[in-house]
């Protein structure tokens, strides 16, 4: 049977070399188109002002790193502040999502309690809820609590993340935990472990892959997020990188193009590094769970 299939396959694919070469050429052409904007951005970021206008090619004739220093200090504050703000928001979001979604997922995946089915259905329902629907009332709510532009203006961005409102990650972890053999829980139970003990000693250590996936996507999405940060951050020294980048658009002067590109490159750097480090996981992560990326 096996031998038969392998021969039919081989005969079914005569002249694999020629077809493969065509396929490869098409793919290389598509890759060139796909990567062009990114390479062009990189090239433009090191072009002089004059070259940005005259030379639209990928490579600069003269390498001009000055855009980076100019962009870094282009506004009253250095971009360092914006990067620190973004890093803090992103890392705290990662922590909040990992902890709160893990707790909720354990309850949904492993514990029997009254109304579980209903709560689970509600959780799935919130999965489809667009963030834009909630932004107005959330803004009003956080504002009336004095948290918008308050002493620590990031609270409106962070509080929801510590309350497992990112239903997507709850769902992802529930799916993952369902794959952990129930016998392990049962064995721990017989050894006298409470639900808390089972969580601590069985589920938590085994959930590491799901936690890592959650952490990576949580970081990248928050780093890239613009809408919520735009709405909730109102004073310049609280701005995160995406909001700060829009300052370049406001200052319409042509001379800011180089610095704008330089800062755009830097702003993509953390995501790009994550991509390099975890690309296999990121790509597999979305095909198992349908992450939007």
């Amino acid at each position, binding site marked *: 049977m096996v031998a038969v299939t392998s021969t039919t396959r081989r005969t079914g694919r005569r002249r694999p070399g020629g077809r*493969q070469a065509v396929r490869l050429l098409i793919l290389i052409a598509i890759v060139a188109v796909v990567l062009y*904007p990114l390479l062009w951005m990189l090239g433009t970021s090191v072009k002089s002002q004059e070259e940005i206008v005259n030379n639209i090619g990928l490579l600069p004739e003269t390498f001009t790193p000055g855009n980076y220093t100019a962009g870094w200090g282009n506004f009253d504050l250095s971009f360092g502040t914006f990067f620190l703000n973004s890093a803090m928001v992103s890392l705290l979001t990662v922590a909040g999502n990992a902890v709160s979604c893990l707790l909720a997922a354990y309850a949904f995946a492993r514990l029997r*309690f009254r109304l579980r089915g209903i709560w689970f259905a*509600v959780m799935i329902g919130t999965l*489809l809820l*667009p963030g834009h629907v909630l932004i*107005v009332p959330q803004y009003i709510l956080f504002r009336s609590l004095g948290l918008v532009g308050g002493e620590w203006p990031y609270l409106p961005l962070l509080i929801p993340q510590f309350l497992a409102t990112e239903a997507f990650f709850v769902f992802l972890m529930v799916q993952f935990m369902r794959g952990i053999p129930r016998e392990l829980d049962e064995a721990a139970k017989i050894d006298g472990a409470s*639900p808390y003990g089972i969580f601590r000693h069985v589920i938590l250590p085994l959930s590491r892959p799901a936690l890592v996936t959650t952490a990576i996507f949580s970081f990248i999405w928050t780093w890239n997020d613009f*809408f919520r940060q735009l709405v909730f951050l109102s004073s310049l020294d609280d701005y995160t990188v995406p909001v700060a980048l829009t300052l370049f658009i406001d200052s319409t002067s042509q001379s800011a193009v180089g610095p704008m590109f330089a800062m755009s490159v830097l702003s993509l750097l953390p995501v790009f590094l994550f991509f390099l480090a975890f690309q296999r996981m990121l790509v597999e992560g979305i095909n198992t769970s349908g992450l939007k990326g």
Partner: protein
Amino acid sequence: MALTTAPGRTGRSGSARPHANRRRVGRDRHAEGLAGYVFLSPWLIGLMGVTAIPMLLSLWLSFTDYDILTPLSEVRWVGLANYERMFTADPSYWHAVRVTLTFAVVAVPLKLAAALGVALLLNKAWRGVGLFRALFYLPSLLGGSVALAIVWVNMFNRDGAFNSFLALFGIEGLPWVSDPDWALQTLMVLAIWQFGAPMVIFLAGLKQVPTELYEAASVDGASRWSQFWHVTLPMLSPVIFFNLVLETINGFQGFTAAFVLSNGTGGPVDSTLMYTLKLYISGFTDLEMGYASAMAWVFLIAIGLITAIFFSTGRFWVHYSDGEK
């Protein structure tokens, strides 16, 4: 806790055991139920505080003329006035609806077609396929960022890279991003460019198609094209459906690129006024929170309806291999 299961106890007289066991099971179940709510509590608090109550608040506000500056206690109830204004007295609202629908109807199918096409090219395993997969996925990962939107806008400027590329072929370019007839198309190209995420999902789906089906088809003399139509597409329909629903909902929510292209105005001449951008402008620029809330509710209902329509029509073209419908 450990005491109840100590062997000394279970070894006692037979008649007491079932009773003790039942009590133990009951107590365990009670403990588990309590633990369930303990573990669920952050989520429950979030559901109430950050989702449910804000939603109810938003529903109520949609019947008021709340402008954020007057205190909530003095808000005036205006009935259906916001909805009426939206549907009858605000042409830019309908414009936003049209822009958003156009965007979704054109960009989503093209994006999915690109994703499927490239997935088919990558489907066979060979050396280097992983690298291609990763490179195609990269734009999806960076896609929602402000930085990328900035690059895109500059690339499609009057004197941008795209026009000088066209100039190589003697074609005179257009000021794509500042031309009301082309600004939205520029955003669509940006969206299609990010075909990597649905592509990866298609690839996973293609792996599930049994090779025997292709073998049987080629024994029957089916051409590659008819194999694609009669084997690949039907077998892939659940994944196509999944991507279609996901990408349509995402498409409706496009905000960042439209904001960056138009500097938050939806211009030129409202050509990129996506629904969410209109909502943002109403709520946070014009401070008409009541009106924005009404818009949010219509948006929610529209997305719900569209999802429902997808699911009810899906029955006719989505084939599950186990015969499940």
